[in-house]
């Protein structure tokens, strides 16, 4: 990976940039994109929303339906965050506070604690407007220096929001508000999970349509212009600050709606539901799918929530871990035989190390795997498993495991510095093996934490390798 230095002359770059659009139109992906672009909006919406509409028919399990509702809520959050982050390029770090505000406002309008029960058709719009207005006010102080300062102000706002939730008496502190009434829509109460699924789905369809139209409106074009070059946009007489605050408020409003749907479905709201962890998760969804693209962000939210669900159970997590490594290698490495060679070499390398360790220091292989799935039997005779590496509390018991973890991180970073493709593949073999050892000895006992470690690493890696995400459009800088 060579990076262009600003001081080097960039010969040929301008030419490449100038012809980028032309080349895109000639490629298959480019033509496909154009065909999709020309399709009528209603058809696009139907095709896009159909999988979500049909989802409940494929499952009887309450758990799966619940996951479906959570996914839709996440999709709404990711869509809302995308307005500020993807379309305008503002870093909004207080986003989940607006989600929380929506949820708590619903609790204030419809719960036993508040002694009211507003119907949803009144409550949700009121909440959306109130939260959007709050978002506007929060963005206001940084209007002169929007950008980086907005990040600090919003992050601090999130902190204040959490402090108020935990310490104020009217929010009942960390115990939260538990007796929230269910959604009442035009006189009918919604009680079943399926009912909630379809209400959330309806909100999803409405918001997606709204965002689609907004993206194509004058405002949407102005936002994109603003993201590409603020100064140029300002010179074109665009009201830059007002546009930024508007994007910020729209995103906050959508988060408010998501919160207003989340609270009655859960039946309770707690401060711990709206913390930094949720914030980063939503960021990961937006970035993975492709910031700026409605479809991309939706796909990102579905993918991340599905994998987070799957990573809950240590046995499933093990499967996923090995599967993901094999898949990633096969998809990313060229030529085709290279990943096969690397995997075979890793297997042999592991067996050799295991054998050596058994001869020299049997204590290094005396342990057993944490999981009980079939894959663990195979793994048991392959990776190094010192006895009692995982302590009673699931934490690594010895300094060795911690060192191995730090070593793995350092080795992976070092790997990216190797320029030669062949040597990188050679170096990958011990790193993969070390990764498997660390997984079995450190990560697998705490899948809840391991998944967040992976999300953090994914954000950094994505930004460096593929900032446009899975479905976003590659940014072409016009000089």
């Amino acid at each position, binding site marked *: 990976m060579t990076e262009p230095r*600003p001081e080097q002359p960039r010969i040929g770059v301008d030419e490449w940039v100038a012809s980028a659009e032309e080349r895109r139109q000639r490629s298959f992906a480019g033509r496909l994109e154009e065909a999709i672009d020309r399709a009528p909006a209603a058809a696009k919406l139907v095709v896009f929303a159909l999988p979500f509409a049909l989802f409940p028919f494929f499952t009887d399990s309450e758990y799966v339906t619940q996951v479906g509702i959570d996914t839709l809520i996440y999709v709404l959050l990711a869509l809302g965050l995308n307005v500020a982050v993807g379309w305008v390029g503002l870093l909004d770090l207080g986003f989940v506070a607006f989600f929380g505000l929506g949820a708590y406002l619903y609790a204030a309008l419809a719960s036993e604690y508040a002694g009211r029960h507003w119907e949803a058709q009144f409550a949700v719009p009121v909440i959306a407007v109130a939260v959007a207005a709050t978002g506007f006010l929060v963005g206001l102080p940084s209007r002169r220096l929007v950008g980086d300062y907005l990040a600090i102000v919003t992050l*601090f706002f999130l*902190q204040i929001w959490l402090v108020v939730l935990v310490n104020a008496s009217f929010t009942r502190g960390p115990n939260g508000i538990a007796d929230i009434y269910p959604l009442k829509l035009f006189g009918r109460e919604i009680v079943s999970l399926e009912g909630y699924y379809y209400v959330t789905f309806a909100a999803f369809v409405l918001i997606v349509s709204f965002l689609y139209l907004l993206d194509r409106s004058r405002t949407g074009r102005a936002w994109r212009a603003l993201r590409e070059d603020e100064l140029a946009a300002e010179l074109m007489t665009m009201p830059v600050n007002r546009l930024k605050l508007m994007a910020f408020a729209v995103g906050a409003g959508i988060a408010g709606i998501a919160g207003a749907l989340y609270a009655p479905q859960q039946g309770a709201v707690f401060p711990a539901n709206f913390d930094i962890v949720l914030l980063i998760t939503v960021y990961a969804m937006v970035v993975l799918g492709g910031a700026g693209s409605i479809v991309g962000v939706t796909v990102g939210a579905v993918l991340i929530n599905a994998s987070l669900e799957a990573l809950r159970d240590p046995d499933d997590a093990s499967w996923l871990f090995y599967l993901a490594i094999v898949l990633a290698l096969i998809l990313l490495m060229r030529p085709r035989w290279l990943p096969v060679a690397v995997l075979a070499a890793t297997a042999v390398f592991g067996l050799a190390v295991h054998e050596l360790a058994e001869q020299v220091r049997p204590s290094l292989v005396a342990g057993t795997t944490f999981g009980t799935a079939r894959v663990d039997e195979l793994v048991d005779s392959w990776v190094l498993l010192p006895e009692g590496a995982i302590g009673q509390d699931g934490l690594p018991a010895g300094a060795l495991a911690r060192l191995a*973890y730090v070593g793995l991180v350092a080795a992976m970073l070092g790997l990216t510095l190797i320029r030669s493709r062949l040597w990188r593949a050679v170096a990958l073999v011990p790193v993969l093996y070390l990764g498997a050892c660390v997984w079995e000895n450190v990560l697998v006992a705490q899948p809840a934490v391991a998944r967040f*470690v992976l999300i*953090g690493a994914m*954000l950094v890696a994505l930004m460096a390798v593929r900032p446009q995400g899975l479905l976003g459009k590659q940014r072409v800088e016009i000089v």
Partner: protein
Amino acid sequence: MDWDKLVQLLVNGVTLGSVYALVALGFSMVYGILKLLNLAHGDVLMVGAFVGWGVLGWLGGAQDPTVAVWLVILLMILAAMVGGGFLGVAIERFAYRPLRRAPRIAPLISALGVSFFLQNSVLLLFGANFRSYDSFDLVDVGVGVEWGPLHVWVMRIVVIVSALAMMGGLWLLVTRSKLGKAMRATAFDREAAAMMGIDVDRVIVKTFFIGSALAGAAGVLVGLVFFQINHFMGFNYGLKGFTAAVVGGIGSIPGAMVGGLFIGLAEAFSVGYIEDLTRGRLGSAFSDLVAFLILVIFMLVRPQGIFGKPEVKKV
């Protein structure tokens, strides 16, 4: 008026403020040179605190250290500085440098990822429980300076003095040394500095090393006077450090020091008096509200901070 309480809060505020100032310095230096908000800076502090804690354990713990107490403290600070410094360099190399030419938001998201990764890595390796420095075993709380009714624990003095010493050292480095000159030149205009023969990448790496080393040291100082550390502590210190840097004037070294002291004092006094002033309606936990209000007021009234110059955009 309760003068004892006032003076005690003053001492608390200066202690807290000197830590915030150290954080603000690193943050401000990086911002000055790269125009980049290093959101992972608070987590470098957290890692520094854990490095110091590890060194303390390695030297026999706070109860019966194997070497002299002053040496223990010195070694803890030095190890945290080295650890924090190299961590900062790694963050720069792998998370920020590939994104130098990317849109402004890309390194910020990358920084979020780094921050989340560091927090959860420490959570993974050490758990969510607070770890304690037990520094009251290292130096008895009774040992200190008596001044009338006022008693200041010697550890507080150590912390304040070492923070001041580090700030002084940094001031000398930036104003007197060749590296400092190169740093100032790079902050002023990176391309022009490169044309004058300054290796900009190296200057940036060194800036990150120094700034992160200060954060690492600040982590140990926090542990020494406030005892408790955990994986999430960096968030609060990062946030207050950012606020201090903004209040003082981002990119300015004296600004970061003054801003840090200002925020520290404001926090200490609001912890002490907020309950009396609001007649018990707001508890001491709401002291963060005061820092937030200060930040908002500064952004509205004087967005360039106390020592900063208003930014003039050149095309």
